[in-house]
């Protein structure tokens, strides 16, 4: 059973829809800047990949009107989800069929409303408007109930590899006949909770992040959502197919709660398993969408892992230099960028790498157009050593 991509939707710092994201990538326009809509003591200290819309503007982007208690995470999820099912042209009957599943992911979920959570958890109110919104699964429940999805629904949280695991699990449901159609993805929003968490680990950068550069000094937090409609070869018919999910690999680095092992054990296992699962060899891979957070540890270890697998690394970039690190949404947003590369025959420049760690094998330093992108490897690694790689191919 093959797993095809028939639609996708995205909202990120570089655009509120697929078209806008693609044009920003082509123009090498980053979305990383000082925060304008978000409130925190740190807005002037750090750079963020903020979605450049107010809550009211976000509400206008969704077709749903019953938005009481919705958090930013919920709104991002609804906006990207609606674009994805529209592109895949899914009917209500298809959405509500028991063999249509939904697998989402989030790390902060509704805890993005940090101040309201503080009030409710400490009984300082009789219940804020976000009382029912805090769990990381709430956005999924809201998607399922409002869109009438009656099949299997799930939320994954493996930190920064969450939505890569959502894509993997969706592909598995189809492969083993448990579902015919799965909508997969994830959503996260910048919150006091995550800023302070990452700040306590001293890995936030005070400049625009510099993946794979010797000058890198940490990551920029981003936000947004992405959803992909996966359909099985059994039902897809002659619908437009934008890509195929060809393989996946999941591993644990089993080394440290917040750092990857120097020998890149989990990282190389995930890549190796994904390439094997796709029944490919490393030399088949045309392009790697790297995890590339721009922390000292991640980029160094990822390059060690990539060198182990490939020797000379194929064209690679970190699109976090455009969006910042969107945490749970990173895997699916980067999978969508990979699909955009496949369909536009273009590989995008990795930004801000003035002094590459690997001088003779640097990341993509200017757009490569009119190039055939057949097989992409997309990496996502999370705290807790949760590593996942996906192989996505041209149809």
């Amino acid at each position, binding site marked *: 059973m093959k797993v095809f991509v028939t639609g996708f939707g995205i909202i990120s710092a570089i655009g509120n829809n697929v078209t806008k994201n693609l044009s920003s990538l082509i123009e090498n326009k980053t979305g990383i800047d000082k925060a304008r809509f978000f409130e925190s*003591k*740190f807005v002037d200290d750090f750079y963020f990949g903020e979605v450049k819309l107010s809550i009211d503007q976000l509400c206008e982007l969704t077709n749903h009107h019953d938005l009481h208690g919705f958090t930013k995470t919920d709104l991002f999820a609804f906006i990207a989800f609606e674009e994805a099912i529209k592109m895949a042209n899914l009917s209500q009957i298809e959405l509500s069929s*028991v063999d249509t599943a939904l697998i989402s992911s989030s790390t902060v979920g509704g*805890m993005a409303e*940090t*101040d309201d959570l*503080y009030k*409710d*958890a*400490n*009984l300082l*109110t*009789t*219940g804020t408007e976000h*009382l*029912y919104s805090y*769990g990381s*699964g*709430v956005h*999924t*429940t809201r998607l*399922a*109930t409002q869109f*009438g*999805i*009656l099949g*299997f*629904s*799930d*939320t*994954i*949280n*493996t*930190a920064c590899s969450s939505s890569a*695991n959502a894509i993997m*699990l969706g592909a*598995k449901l189809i492969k*083993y006949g*448990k579902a015919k159609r799965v909508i997969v993805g994830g959503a996260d929003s910048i919150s*006091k*909770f995550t*800023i*302070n*968490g990452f*700040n*306590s*680990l001293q890995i936030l950068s005070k400049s625009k992040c510099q993946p794979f550069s010797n000058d890198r000094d940490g990551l920029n937090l981003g936000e947004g959502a992405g959803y992909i409609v996966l359909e099985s070869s059994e039902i897809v018919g002659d619908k437009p197919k934008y890509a195929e999910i060809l393989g996946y690999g*999941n*591993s*644990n680095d*089993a*080394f440290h*709660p*917040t750092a990857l092992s120097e020998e890149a054990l*989990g990282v190389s296992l995930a890549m190796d398993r994904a390439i094997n699962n796709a029944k490919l060899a490393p030399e088949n891979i045309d392009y790697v969408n790297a995890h590339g957070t721009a922390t000292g540890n991640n980029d160094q270890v990822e390059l060690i892992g990539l060198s182990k697998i490939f020797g000379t690394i194929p064209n690679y970039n970190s699109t976090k230099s455009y969006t910042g690190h969107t945490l749970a949404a990173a895997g699916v947003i980067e999978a969508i960028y990979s699909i955009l590369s496949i369909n536009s025959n273009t590989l995008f420049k990795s930004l801000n790498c003035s002094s590459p760690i690997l001088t003779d094998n640097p990341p993509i330093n200017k757009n490569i157009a009119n190039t055939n992108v057949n097989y992409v490897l997309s990496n996502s690694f*999370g*705290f*807790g*050593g*949760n590593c996942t790689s996906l192989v996505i191919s041209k149809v």
Partner: protein
Amino acid sequence: MYIKDLCYISCQTTFDSSFFETDSIDANAIFVSAKEPDYTPYIPKSLLRRMGKGVRMGIGSGMHLLNKHTNISGIILGTANGGLEDCIKFLNQIVDYNEGTLTPTNFVQSTPNAVAANLALMTSNTCYNNTHVNSGLAFESALIDAMLTLNEVEGDILVGSLEEVTQANINIDKLKGWVVDTETRLLHLVNGNTSGSLIGEGAGMFVVSHDKQQALVEVVDIHTVTTEDINSVWKVYESFLKNNTIEEKNVAFILGRNGDEKHNINYNAFEQQFVKGNSIYTYKNLCGEFPTSISFGLWLSVHLLNKKIKKESIYKDVSMDIKQIIIYNQTYNNQHSFLLVKEVL
């Protein structure tokens, strides 16, 4: 998928076999805390010092099994809230210290994947590792993930759940009307018709395998649905019945009754429509209500099918030879699940 071994930390003495030999523990409360074992055989002190209750319950019960089973090719957990206490401690610091310099341990331990990650770290297990957090369906999702993953790995899989009760979630759940207003007897919980339920906590771990050698039970099928329309739930149940061969005279039911009037309506309707003189068991009168408590129902089903339990936990029992068990649970009135568990032939 077969269950080969299991371990449960709950407010009953389930960690060792004394649960089967003694009276069940009762409480008159609005929440009950787990009877935690001595963790020193399972968790080094250098790691234990950082762990909140939910995390150490998950790791203690998980390590208890991982010490015995070495052929583990995956660790898959489900938890609605993960290390909630650490999460709230970190949150309180953010506000109380006005986003000053904060302690990272709370942040690191509050991420729900910390438990599966720690189990991998402590056993140097670089295999498949995943964490599901879909509120009241998190454990069911972990089971489904394990079923799929067994197609792709050689060895067995550790699958489990954990949930902790903290003042913060009691506060939040109270505001939502999910907690009983007054102290309630645990063992009588399911007979009540109260607003809200008695909150519990627990961690349950299971070694699952595609190999039926030494298996205790078979987990045959799992269906879950998220909807506010109860008729859609019954449609999913009917398709679950159609998917499986159910022998009516040998099937018993385990229901997730929690005494909450909002849930009673659905359980009553389910009994009326689908239960025809079969034995019905409950489990939240032992463990309390929490989002992944269905793992306690699964734990109970293993012991019922292996004839280990003959106690007052039994509710509406009719004498019958049980070969199959259907577990039906609902959480927050919009997440429902059905599990079919069978004796090993």
